[in-house]
C-alpha cells in the first residue's frame, strides 16, 4: 500500500537497488507492521541514503578539483576538544588576577624558591606487592622522595610529624584488591589536598621497549593542557613536587598531560637527534589520574573544606564539558 514502483515484496535475497521510489510524504518505514517487510524497506532506505551521500561526495570532490587553487579550504572535522563547552574559568595567560592569586597562594614559597620539595610517599594499610613496587618506582622518579610504610598509623597524626621534619608534600597511594587505585596528594604546610582516582598503572617491567632505570638527575616537568583555574592549581601542585632546577644533563622529562579530565603521567628520556627531531624513550612507571576532589587544607575527610568535588549527577551530564 503506497509503496510505489519498488521491487516485488517477499524478495528474500536483500533489497535490489531501487530506480524510482515514490512514497507519500507522511510515510515512514517504522509504520509497517510486518517485521520482515519493514526490515526490507529499511535496508532499502539505508542503501538509498548511502547512495545519495556518495553522490554528494563525488560532486563536491569534482567541484573542488575544478576550482583547483581557489577551492575553499577543507572543513575542519569536529572533535571533542573542538566542541568543548567553553569553561568560564579558563585561565588567560595575561590575567592579572590569576597571577596575583598565584603569587599569594600556598605554592608561592615553592615558586619563589624558598622551599625545596621533600616528598613522603606512603600507602594505605597492608600494601600488596604491586603497590609496594609501584611506590618504589615512583620514589625513583620523583627526586628527594622517601617511602615509608604505614603500619596502621593515622594520617592525621603523621601529618604534624611530617611538617616537623620539613616535608613539603605527602602522597598516599590507596590500594584495592592488590592494585593501586587512588592517590591523595597533599601539600604539607597547610596546603591543598587533591584526591585522585588512579587507573592503568604500569610498572617499569610492563612497559614495552623501555630504557634503563631513571638516574638521579632532576627531571624536567611538562604540564600540558591545564587550562581552567582548577586545572591551573592542580598543575601547580604537580609542579611543586619536583625541584626547581632540572638537570638537563639527565635528559629526563616527567609529563603530566591533561586530556578530557584525565591526567596521563609519563616519564621519558629524550635525545635530540637534530634540530627538528627528538627521540623519546619511555622509562619509569606510567599511570592515569582523574581528579575526584580538591580540599583546601591538609587531609581531613570529615571537617575539610572542599574546593571542588566531582559530583557525578551534575558534572557528568554533558559529554563536551570538562573541568580541568
Amino acid at each position: 500500500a503506497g509503496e510505489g514502483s519498488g521491487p516485488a515484496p517477499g524478495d528474500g535475497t536483500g533489497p535490489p537497488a531501487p530506480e524510482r521510489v515514490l512514497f507519500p510524504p507522511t510515510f515512514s518505514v517504522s509504520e509497517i507492521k510486518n517485521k520482515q517487510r519493514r526490515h526490507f524497506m529499511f535496508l532499502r532506505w539505508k542503501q538509498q541514503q548511502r547512495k545519495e551521500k556518495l553522490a554528494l561526495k563525488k560532486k563536491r570532490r569534482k567541484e573542488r578539483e575544478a576550482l583547483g587553487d581557489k577551492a575553499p579550504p577543507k572543513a575542519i572535522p569536529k572533535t571533542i576538544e573542538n566542541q568543548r563547552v567553553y569553561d568560564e574559568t579558563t585561565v588567560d595567560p595575561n590575567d592579572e588576577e590569576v597571577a596575583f592569586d598565584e603569587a599569594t597562594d600556598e605554592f608561592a614559597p615553592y615558586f619563589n624558591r624558598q622551599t625545596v620539595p621533600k616528598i613522603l610517599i606512603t600507602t594505605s594499610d597492608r600494601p600488596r606487592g604491586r603497590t609496594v613496587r609501584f611506590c618504589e618506582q615512583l620514589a625513583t622518579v620523583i627526586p628527594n622522595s622517601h617511602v615509608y610504610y604505614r603500619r596502621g598509623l593515622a594520617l592525621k597524626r603523621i601529618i604534624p610529624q611530617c611538617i616537623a621534619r620539613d616535608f613539603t608534600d605527602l602522597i598516599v597511594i590507596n590500594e584495592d584488591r592488590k592494585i593501586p587505585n587512588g592517590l591523595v596528594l597533599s601539600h604539607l604546610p597547610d596546603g591543598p589536598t587533591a584526591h585522585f582516582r588512579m587507573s592503568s598503572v604500569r610498572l617499569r617491567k610492563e612497559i614495552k621497549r623501555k630504557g634503563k632505570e631513571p638516574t638521579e638527575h632532576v627531571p624536567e616537568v611538562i604540564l600540558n593542557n591545564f587550562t581552567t583555574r582548577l586545572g591551573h592549581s592542580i598543575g601547580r601542585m604537580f609542579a611543586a613536587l619536583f625541584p626547581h632546577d632540572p638537570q638537563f644533563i639527565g635528559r629526563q622529562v616527567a609529563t603530566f598531560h591533561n586530556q578530557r579530565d584525565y591526567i596521563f603521567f609519563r616519564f621519558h628520556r629524550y635525545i635530540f637527534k637534530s634540530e627538528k627531531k627528538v627521540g623519546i624513550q619511555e622509562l619509569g612507571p606510567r599511570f592515569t589520574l582523574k581528579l575526584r576532589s580538591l580540599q583546601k587544607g591538609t587531609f581531613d575527610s570529615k571537617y575539610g573544606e572542599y574546593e571542588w568535588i566531582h559530583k557525578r549527577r551534575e558534572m557528568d551530564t554533558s559529554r563536551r564539558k570538562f573541568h580541568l
Partner: protein
Amino acid sequence: SPQVVWSMLGNRQFCSYKMTTKTQNFCRNEYNLTGLCNRSSCPLANSQYATVREEKGRCYLYMKTIERAAFPRRLWERVLLSKNYEKALEEIDENLIYWPRFIRHKCKQRFTKITQYLIRIRKLTLKRQRKLVPLRRKIERRENRREEKALIAAQLDNAIEKELLERLKQDTYGDIYNFPIHAFDKALQQQDEESESESDAEREEDDEDEDVDKREFVEAEDSELSDFEDMDKLETSSEEEQEEEEEVEEKASHSKSKGKMPLKGPARRKRPHIEIEYEEETEPSTKTRAT
C-alpha cells in the same frame, strides 16, 4: 520426650535449623550452644539446656528447664552476667549448679569467646575504620572507555616531542646542544645576505647588534624558514654558500670535536662571543666577494 524429638529431627526427618556440609552438620538455631548439630547440643532435643548470648555488648545466660516446657513464652530464662570476666564465670557456675558438666563447660567456653570478640570490636572501633564504597559497574565501564579514548586523542608522544622541541627553540637548554647555534648562524647569515644593500658598516653592525641582542627572537621567527632553506642550501653548493659553509664547518669542527651531545658547557658558552668577532672580521671579505 527429647529422645523422640531427636530421633525425628536429628536423624531421620527434616530439621529446618540443620545445615549439612560435606564434613559436618551445623545447627542454625540461635539458642544452640556449640553451633553443631548433635544430640547433646540440640536445643530442641534437650529439655534442660543453657546458652550464653550477647546483646548490645552485654552477655546473658539463657536457661531452659523441663518445668517450663509447656510454656513456650516463658521457656527461656535470661540472666544478665556481670561485666567482670571472673565474676561472670562464677555466676554461670552458680546458675548452672548441678547441671550436666557438658553444658556448664560449653557455656563458659562460649562466654569466653564472646568476651574476646567484644574486646576486639571495641579496640577496632577506636582505630580508623575502612569505609567501603561500592563500585558502580556502569560508571566504571564508562570511565574506562573514556580514558581509552582520551589516551588516543592525547597523542602523548607527539605532544611531548613537540613540547621538547619548543623548549629547544626557546633556548631553555642554554648551550648544551649545538643545534640552536647552527640555526642562529644560518639565520644571521641569511639576514646579512638579505640586507645586501649599499649598507654602511655601521648599519651592518647595527643589524648585527640587533641580531645579537634579539638573538632569540630572530631565531624563533626565522628559524623554521631559514632552517629549511639552509638545509637546501647546504646540499647545493653555490658560491655564496661556500663562505657560509666554511664558517659553518669551522664552527662545526669546534662542536664535533667534542661529539654531539650535551657536554662542555663553558666551552659552548664561549662560542657566541667568538662568533661575533669572527663575523666582524670576515664581514668586509664576504661583502667584497658578493659584490
